[in-house]
């Protein structure tokens, strides 16, 4: 059975283009123009993944509200914010509401599809029974690339997809400096330097949430970052 992707986007042309792209990838796609439409449809049937625009018709923050409601209905449902906005504040708000990724509309359709695939992979992996799959261990860090899940000292650290790939890129070769471009490539995103910096900052904070003494991500000024054990 095809996976169902819900696209909530008020701009018809974009909506249809995304729908066409996802359909081409073999997904079933439902599109909604506003929050009311989407919520009534979600109440009847939950999608497997939701791509939500933040500003919806007359609600500038409608996407956030929708995210909250959808998260209440389905705690494990992967949600991707897709927006023309690119401000730091929006990203933080979206991720705090439990979105799995926050992508700007600059992202190419191919990248978007890759993200969607990755998210589905994570969902699948989490459903499967625990098995030693593609697991990267660096001291207290365990990165499960199947489930896109990170653990520190056995405690789960909830990372967004972008953050997961950044940690992965750093931890794969401890001690090696990864510059910002390499991190962007690894995360399959196009971000500017400051966004990378704030991603790294958020990663540190999330790890520090489970271990206040976490300092494995080190800044190499002028070059980038590296993982130290």
């Amino acid at each position, binding site marked *: 059975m095809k996976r169902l992707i819900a696209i909530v986007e008020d701009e018809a042309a974009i909506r249809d283009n*995304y729908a066409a792209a996802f359909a*081409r990838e073999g997904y079933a796609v439902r599109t909604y123009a506003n929050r009311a439409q989407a919520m009534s449809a979600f109440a009847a049937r939950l999608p497997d993944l939701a791509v939500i625009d933040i500003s919806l018709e007359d609600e500038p923050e409608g996407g956030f509200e929708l995210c909250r409601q959808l998260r209440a209905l389905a705690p494990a449902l992967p949600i991707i914010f897709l927006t023309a906005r690119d401000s730091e504040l929006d990203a933080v708000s979206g991720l705090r509401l439990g979105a799995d990724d926050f992508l700007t509309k600059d992202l190419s359709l191919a990248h978007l599809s890759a993200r969607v695939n990755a998210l589905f992979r994570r969902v699948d992996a989490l459903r499967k029974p625990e098995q030693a799959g593609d697991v990267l261990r660096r001291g207290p860090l365990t990165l499960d690339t199947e489930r896109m899940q990170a653990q520190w000292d056995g405690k789960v650290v909830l990372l967004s997809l972008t953050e997961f790939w950044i940690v992965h890129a750093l931890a794969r070769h401890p001690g090696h400096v990864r510059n910002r471009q390499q991190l962007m490539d690894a995360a399959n995103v196009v971000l500017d330097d400051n966004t990378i910096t704030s991603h790294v900052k958020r990663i540190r904070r999330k790890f520090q949430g489970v271990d206040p003494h976490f300092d494995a991500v080190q800044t190499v*000024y002028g070059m980038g970052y590296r993982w130290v054990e």
Partner: protein
Amino acid sequence: MSLRLKLLLLGLLTLVLPWAGCRYAREMESALREGEQTSLESVAETLATSLEGRVDLLYRAPAGAESQDTAALLKAGPYDLKPLALTAAPLVDGYSEDWPRDPRAWAWYEKDPAHRFGVLSGVFERVLYLLLDVHDEHPVFDAPGASPLDARSTGDRIWLGFQDPEGTEREVFIAATGPGAVTARYIETGEYGQQLAELEPRIRGAWQLAPGGYRLELRVPLSMLGASFGVLVDDRDARGAIPVSYGSLHPDDLRTVGRLIVAAPELTTYLAQFSQPGLKLAVSTPAGQVLARVDALKRVAELAPAPPLIARLYRRFVDQPGTVPPIEAQVPIYDRGHAQVIGTLEVTQTPDRWLRLRDRALTRMLNFTLATSIVVVIAMFAFAAWLALRLSRLRQASESALTRTGLIASFPDTDSRDELGDVARSFSSLLGRLNEYTGYLRSLAGKLAHEIRTPLTIVRSSLENLEAEQVGASARTYLERARQGSERLNAILVAMGAATRVEEAIGGAERSRFNLVPLIESAVAAYRGAFPERRFTAELAAGPVMMDGAPDLIVQMLDKLIDNAVDFSPPGSTITVRLLVTPQAAVLEVENPGPPLPSEAPGRLFESLWQSRSEGDNRPHFGLGLYIVRLIAEFHGGLASAEDLPEGGGVRFSVRLPL
């Protein structure tokens, strides 16, 4: 010229006050002088009136003399003796040194050019002094030891003839046997008809030889003398020779022919009653001979304390050069019938008295006006300083009020009710409007970028979908071009929004205390790897340089400076990174060889969306690098600046970071 200086000069205008005061003082001086003159004249009038008809005092004539007697009294004769009113008694020694040196005071008597003598006479207190200067080729003394009446031994002889106070004619003679003291003698007819030379001890003198003759000095008490007086010289060329007699006595019977014009001693006493310091009283004959004089002109200087230094200083400024002439008043003294002028009273007053008055007023006034001037100047200066302070505060505020983050809240002086307050208020509202406008402009790029992003996304997603479709090879070329175009458009949009993102990132930066030196060292090491076609030299301070700030941002700032340096320097050139430390600040400098700074907009170099880049470079570039440098420098409370190196050596960007 600064406002302070201008107001100071304006304040100096108050020095007109003391100047006007000086002018006024001069006016006052002449008024005072006039007043003094008037009062002096009235004093003189009064005194002259009190002396009216007092021929007894003026001329020792019997009191109550009739007018015709007075007229006769005043009629000048060639043999009249007019003694000077002496100020001190000369020493009777036969020498002329202690007499006034006035050739006109001498009366000369002459028989022929070989026989002449001069008489200088003077009165002091109650004594008549005579100095005789006799020209005599052969002075002859009496023979020593002989009787003065012995005709054979008689030498040169001086006769004095006078009326005594009772009007009786008397004669005395002076004979000497050698230079020295002499005493007059008179000839008395003895009991048996013999003639005796008796001493007249009241008339004494001294006889001295002088070049071309001899000199005789005599003192005669005025109490012995009446109205007339005369001197006669018997000049003998040998003892006992026939004398050549000449002088102001009748040569035959020695009768007096000239009068003794001299005031009664009481006149001086009378005048002395009216004497006071700084005043000179003098009574003279209508012909000008001074009869009596009481002079206290000099005493004023002795009595008055020296004026204070400041008064003397003022006087130097105020007075015209030269001495101030004394005030004088001359009034005639009439006889009882008011028909005849019998004398002149002259009253002289030193200028010291009114000068002192004037000085006192002047000193006070100058003190007052100068103090006023000083107070005004100081007040003006203070006011000017205050104004200048307010103005400079206003200027500073207007320069710095509008920052990147908007208008600072407090604009100075907007509460003042004066014109400066108006200026401040209009500046404030002007800057407020400007702020709104710049805010609008600043947000315009971001808003525009956001608005364009949606249609661009439509274009790009459509293109991507189209690529997935089956299209012809030629269509694919166009597709590729469209995709490239949209990529570029996208890059432009990213750049346009970048400024906002940088500001947000800076706003959220975490501060910590860190050492600048290793930070810059590692960054420079990274640049060596990143830009292999440039050489990098680092000239860093020796010790650790600790500062508070965001190390991430500092490195980002250095990145931008290096990017800029690499962009504008030719391959193979050397870029210098330098860290200088002063007690207050660290200065980070990046130098690169290359073209000089664009001259048209030196101040705009660090602004957003400003670029000056050579033609043919088609990379999207929005001059954000240096803008970010400025934002980061300002976040750290610092300042970014750029300058050309001397002799076209390139450019230097420096960032001053307070420690």
